[in-house]
């Protein structure tokens, strides 16, 4: 499969995305924010970091980049898009995903490993979930508290679009397990069509045992499996 990793000024997990895809044996390339075409790509990763310094609001400036217009077209045509951390914030700002991300409840930037419950294992981003339904991956963000109004939340719940929730080791989305105050422990969601998803934790930083966890690989592997079934390569 061929992945593209968007590169905004100030992105800093772009390398991590590229590296993770390559470790899993697939191709990846960068796509500069001033480009206006996605080009021959099977899936797009919108990486973490501090695009445009996260000035004004996290992701607020990046969404107006030329490449984002192309990304919207790619998504509308059914292309697989995953936003991670700042990438999730950008996708929310761009309206590709519902809700918004606000400052962590404790007001501090928070970096640690968390457990994620795969809340819906039947999506292009979660289908390769382990039997336990729980994966351990790092978070690293200051504005990761997911917020959406009640109506949106109901819609998300009904259509099973909440994909990942912060949980404890046993898979219970408890208050203690919530690192940032996200409503309903939401760590990540997808759009209505199910081809665009975003999450605050970093699965791409958990694809090799040597860096503490390989359990995040299942997210990228889910995308790869989906693509191979679609016959793209």
């Amino acid at each position, binding site marked *: 499969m061929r992945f593209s990793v968007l590169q905004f000024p100030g992105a800093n997990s772009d390398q991590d995305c590229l590296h993770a895809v390559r470790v899993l044996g697939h191709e990846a390339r960068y796509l500069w924010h001033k480009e206006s075409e996605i080009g021959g790509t099977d899936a797009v990763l919108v990486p973490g970091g501090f695009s445009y310094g996260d000035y004004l609001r996290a992701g607020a400036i990046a969404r107006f980049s030329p490449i984002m217009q192309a990304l919207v077209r790619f998504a509308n045509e059914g292309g697989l898009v995953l936003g991670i951390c700042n990438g999730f914030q950008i996708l929310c700002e761009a309206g590709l995903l519902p809700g918004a991300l*606000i*400052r962590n*409840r404790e007001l501090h930037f928070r970096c640690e490993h968390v457990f994620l419950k795969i809340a819906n294992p039947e999506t292009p981003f979660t289908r390769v979930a382990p039997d336990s339904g729980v994966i351990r991956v790092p978070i690293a963000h200051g504005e990761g508290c997911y917020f959406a109004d009640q109506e949106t939340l109901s819609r998300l719940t009904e259509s099973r679009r909440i994909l990942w929730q912060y949980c404890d080791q046993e898979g219970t989305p408890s208050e203690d397990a919530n690192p940032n105050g996200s409503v309903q422990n939401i760590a990540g969601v997808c759009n209505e069509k199910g081809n665009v998803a975003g999450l605050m934790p970093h699965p791409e930083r958990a694809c090799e045992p040597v860096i503490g966890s390989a359990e995040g690989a299942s997210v990228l592997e889910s995308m790869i499996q989906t693509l191979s079934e679609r016959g793209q390569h």
Partner: protein
Amino acid sequence: MKAKITITPKKAVLDPQGKAVLNALEHLGYDGVGDVRVGKYLELDVASDSPEFRRTLDEACHRFLSNPVIEDYHVEFE
């Protein structure tokens, strides 16, 4: 002239920063404060406050300067 834009978190949105400031105020003995919302303030040098420009700026606020999902804004010209 200047356009002064105040952006505040929506009432329904938890504002942990505002809460922290309120706690600190109480801690420091500044009583009589009920609630605190911490927002942003932008000052723009602008050429006019014509209805047409006001509409333009309103759009910019809605589309870019604030995030309507979590924020309200208020514009004043001076």
